[in-house]
Structure formats: C-alpha cells, structure tokens
C-alpha cells in the first residue's frame, strides 16, 4: 500500500514538474508568466501574447481547459492591432495574413497547464476589493449602455459582426473571465497593466456592476446561439 502511495506521489509530482516545464518553456516563449507587465510602450509593442502571470486571478479554469484544446481568436486584430492592419479602400483593415494561431493541446496537457496557470495569483489584493452585487439587466438596456452611454463598442465586439476590432471580443468575456476580475479591470485597467490599451472610463460602481452583468448575459446568449 505504502509503495503504491509512493509511486502515485512520485507520478503526480513528475507530472506537475512536467507541466511547470510546459509553462516555463513553451508558454513562456510568447507569454509573460513571471511578471511584471510591460512598463514601456516599446515593451508593449514587442509583446507576442497576453500576459499570463496573473492567469489565476483572471480566467475561469474550465474555460482554459476547453480553449487550450480548441483555441480560437479572441482579439480580432491580434495582440497589438498596430501590427496587423493594412490600409484598404475604406480605411484600415485587419491584415489576416499577419495573424498567428495558438497551438492546440491534448486534453491531458490542457487540464494540467490550466491547473498550473490557476496557481498564478499575484493580484489577490485587487480581486479581494471587488464584490459581485446580485441583480439583473435587460439585454436591451445593457446594449444601450455598452454602445451609446459608455462607448465600449468603439473597441469591442458584442457579437461576431458588431463593434470595434482592436480589443478582445466581449460576447465570450464572461465565459472566459472571473466576475471579480471583470469588475476590477473595468474599474482600473491600469491597476493591472499601466500601458493597457483599455482606458479608465471612470465608471461608477453601479455602472461597473451593470456592465459585468451585461457581459454575463451576453455570454449566455452567445452560447445559446451556437
């Protein structure tokens, strides 16, 4: 019995070391997994992929496991839009030939890499400041606020064919992101990343809660539509 336990433990720790290896090696080739985030625009322009050093504060684990097996593009214009545009007839367009894809992982690798990523939590302090207030918002009111009153549509898609293209698509945001992270990032993108492309729109607490609720509803609607 003891021997089985030892073997099992050894196996477990070997697997954990292997996954740490994937993270330190393959993932770290493009992602920042140690922090801190880029402090200058020069460094921002050189970023190949989103920062992952606070992945455990940001993502939903189940989404990571599923996305890593079947990765899709979340940022229509790539990591930095400026690197992936060309001048077309009507103005700037995305130059899809310059966009790269994320490698797909096996289920086992996706599961263990996601588990390793969830351990990266340097911003528990920011998350602890946020509380999801219960409430509802109609899709109509949410969309009106998102598009007209707050202007978020300038940079973000709320459906595959509507909205801005430089920011991450938001109809999948709540599937991807933890609720407190959404609240915290909307409140102050610069607290997470001083050079973030996302401006601080100085939203009231009530509006921050409303937008997070809208994103929750939007993600459910998008999932239902599929």
């Amino acid at each position, binding site marked *: 019995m003891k021997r089985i336990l030892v073997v099992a433990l050894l196996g477990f720790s070997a697997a954990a070391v292997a996954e740490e290896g994937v993270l330190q090696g393959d993932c770290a080739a493009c992602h920042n997994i140690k922090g801190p985030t880029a*402090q*200058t*625009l*020069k460094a*921002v*322009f050189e970023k190949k992929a989103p920062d992952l050093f606070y992945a455990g504060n940001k993502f939903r684990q189940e989404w990571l496991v599923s996305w890593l097996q079947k990765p899709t593009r979340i940022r229509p*214009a790539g990591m*930095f*839009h*400026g690197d992936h*545009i060309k*001048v077309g007839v*009507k*103005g*700037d*367009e*995305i130059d899809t030939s310059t966009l790269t894809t994320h490698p797909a992982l096996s289920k086992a690798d996706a599961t263990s890499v996601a588990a390793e990523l969830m351990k990266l939590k340097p911003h528990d302090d920011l998350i602890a400041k946020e509380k999801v207030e219960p409430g509802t918002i109609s899709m109509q009111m949410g969309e009106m606020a998102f598009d*007209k*009153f*707050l*202007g978020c*549509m*300038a*940079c973000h898609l709320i459906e595959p064919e*509507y*909205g*801005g*293209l*430089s920011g991450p698509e938001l109809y999948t945001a709540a599937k991807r992101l933890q609720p407190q992270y959404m609240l915290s990032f909307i409140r*102050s*993108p*610069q607290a997470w990343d001083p*050079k*973030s*492309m996302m*401006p*601080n*729109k*100085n939203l009231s607490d009530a509006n921050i809660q409303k937008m997070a609720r809208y994103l929750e509803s939007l993600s459910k609607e998008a999932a239902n539509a599929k």
Partner: protein
Amino acid sequence: MPSKFILLLLLAVSSVQAQGKETPADNYKAYCIQCHGSEGTGKGVNARDMSVVPRDHTDAKSMSGRSDETLFKAIKEGGTAINKSILMPPWSATLSDEEINDLVQYLRKLCKCKFG
C-alpha cells in the same frame, strides 16, 4: 540645506518621470490609430460600426477650429468633455499631462495647422 535636499528630490522625481515618458508618436500608435487610423484620417480599424466617425486629424479646416486647450481636454477627459462623442474615451489614467500636451503638438503637425 533643506532647500537643497528638496531640489535634489525634485530633480530625482522629474528624472523618473522623464524616463517614463513616451514619445507622442508611440502614444499615437498605441492608443489613437485604432480609431483615428494609421494615417490619422479617422479611418481606423474600429471605425466600421461607429455612429460618429472619428475625427480626421489631417483635416486642417476642422482641426484649426479647435484650440490646444480643447484638444487637451478631449484627450484627457474624453469626447463628452467637449460635447463630442462618448466613443472618444478619457485617457487621463493612461497618459500624463505632459504626454497629452506632446500629443496636442503632434496633432498640429498632422493637420499642419494652428488654432484660428
């Protein structure tokens, strides 16, 4: 003695700020071209679905109708601060006042125009 110390402190602080300061060209590239376009003509990659088209920064006629103070305010506090579109966000948490002033001068170069 204390005044010398304060002077040194001020020097130290200002040099840190100077180190952190970005060029207007880089700030424009990072934050402005997504809507105002890589050529500054208001045809950025985000403009497709906008109800109000982004300002053409090369349009001398409309740009000369805005003072430097108005441009500064629009960048710092957003479009609504000068009764323009909400789609132009406030950049006060992203850019320092000095960087915004530099951007205003950068816009004057793009439009090849002055106020008035």
